[in-house]
């Protein structure tokens, strides 16, 4: 009889009793080390459970059920528009993050002189290696995203995919379209060129003409009733901080709901 208490779960003994390769030994040792501290097994079980819940049983797809493959193949390309908007959003995010290394939202003036913001865009376009291309990619991916999002909405409308279990996702989609447009608008203002300035002017006037809360909205979004440095700064922070977080989160919810509810197939 040994003084040590017998361990029912002598994992090391169990490991030694088996002939394991080096790789298997390392793997098992790591797994046991982690499991002793974090009880990974419980979570693996959860994942396994989830996996089988998702994959064990699936309904026949609509086209499978009614033999519609030959009738409605022409709808299918339009079902890629949602992915296309997500992909161009990712492209815009990457190129935008790179542009952010060089852009400075500073010293907005409106007397026709070059401001720091305008200058930094000029430097990106004129002197930075591949800078012009980078700005071009950012702009085009934004344009493509807006176009894809609008076409995606039309596809959803004309195939009736917004109907009964999917109303919430339709409304979330409308919020996402609005966010995309605000994304585009705030980005449009950043170079602080003539176009940006007068688009900003329209924006201020639009917010001022909202009944009751107009002045408050103008203060909040544009930092005053006339365009100034604080306008540029607010647009910048909206564009690179608030909107990316909010939009990414809502896109995740949107796609998550599609995953849960399944894709509304063409009829």
């Amino acid at each position, binding site marked *: 009889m040994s003084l040590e208490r017998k361990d029912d779960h002598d994992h090391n003994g169990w490991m030694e009793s088996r002939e394991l390769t080096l790789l298997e030994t390392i793997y098992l040792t790591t797994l046991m080390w982690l499991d002793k501290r974090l009880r990974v097994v419980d979570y693996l079980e959860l994942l396994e459970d989830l996996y089988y819940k998702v*994959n*064990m*049983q*699936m309904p026949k797809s609509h086209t499978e*059920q*009614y033999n519609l493959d030959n*009738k409605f193949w022409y709808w299918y390309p339009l079902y*890629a528009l949602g*992915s296309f908007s997500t*992909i*161009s959003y990712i*492209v815009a995010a990457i190129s935008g993050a790179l542009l952010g290394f060089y852009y400075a939202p500073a010293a*907005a003036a*409106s*007397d*026709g*002189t*070059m*401001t720091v913001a*305008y200058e930094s*865009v*000029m430097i990106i376009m004129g002197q930075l290696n591949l800078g*012009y*291309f980078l*700005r*071009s*990619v950012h*702009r085009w*991916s934004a*344009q*493509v995203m*807006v*176009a894809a999002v609008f076409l995606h909405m*039309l596809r959803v*409308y*004309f195939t*009736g995919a*917004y*109907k*009964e279990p999917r109303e919430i996702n*339709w*409304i979330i989609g409308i919020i996402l379209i*609005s966010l995309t*447009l605000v994304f*585009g*608008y705030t980005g449009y203002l950043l170079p*602080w*060129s*003539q*176009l940006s*300035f*007068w*688009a900003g002017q*329209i924006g201020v006037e*639009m917010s001022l*003409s*909202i*009944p009751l809360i107009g002045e408050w909205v103008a203060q909040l979004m544009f930092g005053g009733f006339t365009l100034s440095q604080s306008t540029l700064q607010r647009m910048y922070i909206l564009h690179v901080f608030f909107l990316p977080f909010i939009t990414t989160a809502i896109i995740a919810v949107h796609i998550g709901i599609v995953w849960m509810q399944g894709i*509304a197939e063409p*009829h």
Partner: protein
Amino acid sequence: MSDNDTNDDVRTDGSGTGIVAPDDETPDWSERKERTQGLSRLTYEYFERSRREDQDLRQQSDYVERDVLAFPAWPHEMMRNLALTSFFVGMILFLSAALPPEMPAPANANQTPAIILPDWYLYWSFGLLKLQNLNPSLSLLGGQKLMADRTYGVLANVVVVGFVAIVPFLNKGSARRPVEQPFWAAVGMAGVVFSLTIAALSVQNLIPMDSNLLLDLTFLFPIVTGAITYAALRTMREGYMFNLNRRYYRLRPPK
């Protein structure tokens, strides 16, 4: 010392686990759930119901058991997605190399440009701001307008977006295809055309046309398109749907 020592008494030296084995009196989890009261009881009952509903659905004829994944995610699905994504990203890169953006002059508040425009995707919204001719004036107020023109424009935006948002609550039922619901397809086509004509209205100083005529056409074109769509779909409907939907409606009758 030997293992023959009786260990029935509670050990207080800290060496035991302190875990008591469940006896017959110990409720298991489902019993605990059944014994709950109030809201948690309701939740439990609802979940039981929905689980049963799931079970029934699975046993219906149109469900197939698949203990293996249908189409392998790796490599088939992933390769296809990768190919599509690379093609699409390549298209964006090609566009940006071929058509780089211009840089206009720096901001100048003293020099109004001839044409003030937002990016193309906001033309529809910008056009809705220019509907002051439709802002009703009340004779009761001596021809005064009820609200400022620009308030009216902002309100027009709210109305359009709000209408799009409530579409799922207006159009119910199991019809999906345009041929099944000519009216809503017509509304959609009218909306698409309206978004184009209202965009044209927003750039009215670029269009060589009388502005009143343009305003009339802005609303006339969508209505005409909607009417044509409706007529065309109603005509197509009978023959088209008979062949297509015999089996479909036998299994899933329209509400």
